């Protein structure tokens, strides 16, 4: 691989665009998922699970910040990336923006599983990134994410074990599975190719998507859940192969800038305080006391 892409001043337009696209995918997913998780604070079914999900939300916000920091090197400021950004410019998967129905804990648990399983694959593909700051951050983030997956699976298995819990999980899967496919949809196919060519990430979206399906599909079926869309090809004797077709995908995919209405409501909500205070700086609320 040619350059280390370390010096932001030396990036050409193609490198810059690839880096920006990759980082916005990463950061926006984490940030928006955290925004949704925080809705469960004081509403989760037990104090332990309330704390766990609040903590996961805090992790995701921390990770979003680590990725937004790298965008800082190429000229972006936090406020432009979060509070002053056009909501249609966010590139998160629509899986993370969907609202929760009141009290639908199974949705939160399943969503977390679908996301965290994908997140592990994605982070693995960044371990040897040619961008030193990306590679520097991956280990820390992975060590924190491992707990999220364990938490989600622990709950999934318990919910799937009861009639009502199983039914709720199936409902959630029917709703969320199409949106989960968008985790591996391109922002722009040419730029996605550049991301891999430049060595920023060492796996394509297709490769990561296939790996994700080969993990989540058998696992969900082991819990007696039925896939709302089954794209498996072959008779099952060969290697796992699953084809995601256009019809299986929702209209709004997030990556390409299309979002569901729920996203715009959420955006209004988390930017409200910023707007009402007339903020122009995000990181400090008041001067440090002497």
């Amino acid at each position, binding site marked *: 691989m040619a350059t280390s892409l370390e010096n932001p001043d030396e990036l050409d337009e193609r490198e810059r665009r690839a880096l920006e696209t990759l980082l916005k995918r990463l950061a926006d997913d984490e940030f928006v998922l955290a925004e949704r998780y925080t809705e469960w604070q004081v509403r989760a079914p037990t104090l332990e699970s309330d704390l766990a999900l609040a903590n996961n939300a*805090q992790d995701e916000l921390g990770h979003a910040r680590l990725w937004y920091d790298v965008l800082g090197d190429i000229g972006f400021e936090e406020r432009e990336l979060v509070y002053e950004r056009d909501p249609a410019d966010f590139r998160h998967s629509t899986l993370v923006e969907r609202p929760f129905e009141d009290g639908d804990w199974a949705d939160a648990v399943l969503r977390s599983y679908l996301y965290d399983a994908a997140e592990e694959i994605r982070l693995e593909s960044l371990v040897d990134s040619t961008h030193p700051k990306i590679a520097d951050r991956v280990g*820390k983030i992975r060590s924190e994410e491992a707990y999220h997956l364990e938490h989600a699976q622990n709950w999934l298995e318990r919910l799937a074990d009861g009639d009502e819990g199983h039914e709720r999980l199936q409902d959630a899967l029917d709703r969320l599975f199409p949106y989960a496919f968008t985790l591996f949809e391109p922002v722009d196919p040419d730029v996605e190719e550049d991301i891999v060519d430049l060595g920023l990430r060492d796996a394509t979206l297709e490769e990561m998507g296939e790996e994700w399906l080969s993990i989540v599909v058998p696992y969900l079926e082991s819990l007696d859940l039925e896939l709302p869309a089954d794209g498996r090809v072959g008779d099952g004797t060969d290697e796992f192969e699953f084809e995601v077709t256009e019809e299986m995908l929702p209209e709004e995919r997030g990556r390409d800038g299309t979002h569901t209405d729920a996203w715009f409501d959420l955006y209004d909500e988390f930017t409200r305080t910023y707007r009402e205070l007339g903020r122009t700086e995000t990181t400090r609320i008041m001067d440090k006391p002497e």
Partner: protein
Amino acid sequence: MSSNIPDDTDATPCAYTDYREGETNDDLPATGDDATGLAADVWDALYGIEDPEMPISIVDLGLIYGVSVDDGVASVDMTLTYSGCPARDMLTEDVEDAVAAVDGVDDAELRLVWSPEWTVEMVTERGKDDLREFGLSI
């Protein structure tokens, strides 16, 4: 009423009571033991900064990965125990202010680094004593 609570009580204790133990790193914790001149003064200033939650210096906690001074500019490599640390701005500003206030330092540059990731193995022996005195088992 249907219930999702299993009848049998096969509950296992929470698995997260142990702090994740990390691998030891030969160069860390960095403590500035062999620093001289202005760099040693910078390390002294860093020793004076405590973690916001526990009575332990950020150096003994193992947060400082390196210090260099070049032509009056002091550069500090530092990590945080946790990516979602809510005291990040507070701590980094404390460090920048303390280092910039060292006599002979014209400018302080702080770089947040995340690998190797911080683990309890990074805490110095003195830091472990401080934490034990505080009531933590380490």
